[in-house]
């Protein structure tokens, strides 16, 4: 049986959108897939050692379930993002959902390959020393080298 492969492009850097790439990658690896995640644009935030700036905002996110109805004017107030993030993290913990750090570690343990888009690293002037290891730096052509051979390819 040949090893199945999966590639994911992670482009978002918010708390809610950070979960799908890591959940799918760790699960696929557990199922025996050879997995690669290509982090680009805001997805690069997910490679930083410190993930405390990966947050969730109720603003422009009308689908986010809130304990009480919250007018947009209130959502705009300073500190709302921090409050929403804290509440979401508490909720995740209460339901036994792993933290992003834990899921990311499980991915690395399972040999999921992390690739950072060099162009967006330069564009946003990210300091590579702020990123975890191991991370490879490459471009779109390198991504297709792997993605072209995959059974599953997802854009998140």
């Amino acid at each position, binding site marked *: 049986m040949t090893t199945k492969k999966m590639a994911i492009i992670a482009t978002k850097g918010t708390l809610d959108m950070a979960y799908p790439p890591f*959940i799918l990658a*760790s*699960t696929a*690896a*557990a*199922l*025996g897939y050879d997995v690669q995640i290509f982090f680009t644009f805001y997805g690069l935030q997910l490679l930083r050692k410190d993930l405390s700036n990966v947050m969730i905002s109720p603003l422009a996110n009308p689908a986010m379930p809130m304990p009480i109805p919250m007018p947009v004017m209130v959502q705009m107030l300073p500190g709302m993002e921090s409050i929403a993030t804290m509440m979401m993290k508490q909720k995740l913990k209460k*339901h*036994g*959902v*792993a933290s992003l750090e834990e*899921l990311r570690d*499980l991915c690395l*343990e*399972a040999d999921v390959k992390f690739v950072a888009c060099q162009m967006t690293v330069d564009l946003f002037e990210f300091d590579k020393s702020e990123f975890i290891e191991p991370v490879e730096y490459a471009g779109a052509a390198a991504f297709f080298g792997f993605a072209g051979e995959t059974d599953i390819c997802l854009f998140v």
Partner: protein
Amino acid sequence: MNFDKEFNASGMSCPLPIVKTKKALVDMASGQVLKVIATDSGAVKDMQAFADQTGNTLLSTSEEGGAYVFMMQKK
């Protein structure tokens, strides 16, 4: 049913029961049985899917006191 190792995934949500079941199986020998306890109801379908895709055998699934018990035999 006899088993060789137990992994308690109670309180864990997707994907931890599957990812950690895989980890628990790593140092086991072929033919040995891992008992997994989980409270995530999604694990019922996931554990079967895990077995189907990895070649391990899900010998049984049962419910005991609000928890699910899986017997997974290593390939």
